[in-house]
């Protein structure tokens, strides 16, 4: 089940109905003696956008790191469709269909734009050269500014272009679930809106299941289907995005708007 979409078929064929859910169940994880996630349960619906909100240190980034295998969960399950991937290595998890775009510094400035993108295809088990070229061209078509700069060092890109690059790289892994950590951080408001638009299109048009970690709670809830609020490593609220956005007390208390 994990191999089908990961690099054999032509790049443009993303079969409909492939969307899967991601469910984290009773997850405990941390660093050394610190418990950053203390029994967290979150469900991201297929092809939906789930916003994960909360203050700094609430455990949002740790959630993504545990799901993508960068840290090993101490307890709990991570279900991709109905397949438990908890405790697997990052390379196994990306092959299973979960791509993680970490916060900031996701671009490797020493490499060219195209080299950065090719890294996204490192998880492909097979894949003929023509498939790889087609997959790259598909991203270049989606992100025109990258196409014009493909041979340039990634260090020459603007903030918005860098965010395009890291999302394009994640898409090249052919994921079914996309974990985005603060994609709007440090971007100008107009660029931020473009990134949010892109996130919406990826879920609506491509059926990607998206987990969106954001400090910008207002912006995230505006595009999300579902919202989860973290505080000190626990889930304190989980509801429809519109319900959360309408909850004045919760907003003041945890979301700062």
């Amino acid at each position: 089940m994990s191999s089908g979409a990961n690099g054999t078929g032509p790049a443009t064929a993303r079969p409909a109905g492939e969307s899967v859910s991601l469910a984290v169940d009773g997850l405990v994880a941390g660093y050394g003696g610190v418990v950053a996630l203390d029994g967290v349960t979150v469900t991201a619906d297929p092809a939906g956008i789930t916003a994960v909100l909360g203050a700094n240190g609430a455990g949002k980034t740790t959630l993504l790191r545990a799901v993508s295998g960068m840290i090993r969960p101490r307890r709990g399950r991570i279900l991709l469709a109905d397949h438990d991937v908890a405790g697997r290595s990052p390379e196994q998890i990306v092959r299973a269909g979960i791509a993680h775009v970490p916060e900031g510094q996701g671009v490797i400035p020493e490499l060219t734009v195209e080299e950065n993108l090719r890294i996204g295809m490192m998880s492909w088990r097979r894949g003929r050269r023509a498939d790889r070229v087609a997959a790259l061209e598909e991203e270049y078509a989606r992100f025109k500014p990258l196409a014009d700069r493909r041979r340039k060092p990634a260090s020459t890109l603007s903030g918005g272009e860098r965010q395009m690059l890291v999302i394009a790289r994640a898409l090249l892994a052919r994921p079914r679930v996309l974990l985005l950590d603060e994609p709007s951080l440090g971007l100008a408001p107009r660029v931020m809106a473009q990134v949010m638009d892109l996130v919406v299109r990826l879920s609506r048009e491509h059926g990607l299941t998206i987990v969106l970690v954001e400090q910008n709670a207002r912006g995230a809830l505006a595009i999300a289907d579902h919202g989860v609020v973290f505080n000190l490593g626990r889930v304190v609220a989980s509801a429809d995005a519109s319900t959360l956005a309408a909850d004045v007390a919760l907003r003041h208390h945890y979301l700062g708007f």
Partner: protein
Amino acid sequence: MVEFLQFTLSGISFGMIYAAIALSLVLIWRGTRLLNFAQGGMAMLTTYIAIEVIYKTHSYWAGFVVALAAGLVLGAASELTVIRPTTGKPELNAVIVTIGLLILFEGLAGIFFGGTYRSFPAAFSITGLRVGGTPIGVSRFDVFVVAAVLLTTLILAVVFRYTTAGLRMRAAAFNATIARLSGIRVARVLTVGWALAGLLGALAGVLVTPSTFLYPNSMDAIFVLGFTAAVIGGLDSPAGAVVGGLLLGVALSYVGGYLGSNVTSLFALGILVAVLMVRPGGLFAGARLRRV
């Protein structure tokens, strides 16, 4: 004038050997931010292996090939057995482990091969070539040294630049987090880096030893010079390592030729200190100096 040419050419030949050691240090430094103090010890061991194979088979090339293969294996085995367990520990741990490895290798060499000085054959004649009756300061073997290191460096450069395996290694070196999240097995890439470093060290060992002797500490001085070359070029830059090696080789050749060979080590040390004081990122560091 003839003298100047002789010093330059023989400096280039030695410089290529320093470049090979420098390159091996850069390979490991880029992957793990670790200076491998055992690099010279590894080269010494593989050169002993070469000498034994040559003695048994009477074939220089059998020894040459076995030495390079042994370098690959020794590099990978060192990473897998003693360096890997230091992952996630304080950085100093790995540094001390490489010093321990050096002591271990030199001890093992003493036990198995004895402490006596042994001479090592050259692949080609070491008699100086002459142009129109004038010796030009280099032998056929020197030409082989330059060609062997240049070819190896070029192959590595092409592999790093133009192949997927090379991109995987560069990605892992520049940003291990991104590499892992993209499905690259970073640990395996590091093992390959150590193996390649072992190979370069082995190459340097068989190339330099005909000019010196082989004994358990025989690579210590070469290691220091290779390290100096790497620092001159900037520890992050493979191209810098080669240029640094050449600059150092030629400079030391002039110093040895005009001022006497007893001041060359002092001069090398002076260069090392001067570069570290004036341009700690190396002569080829761009604007992006790492500051801690």
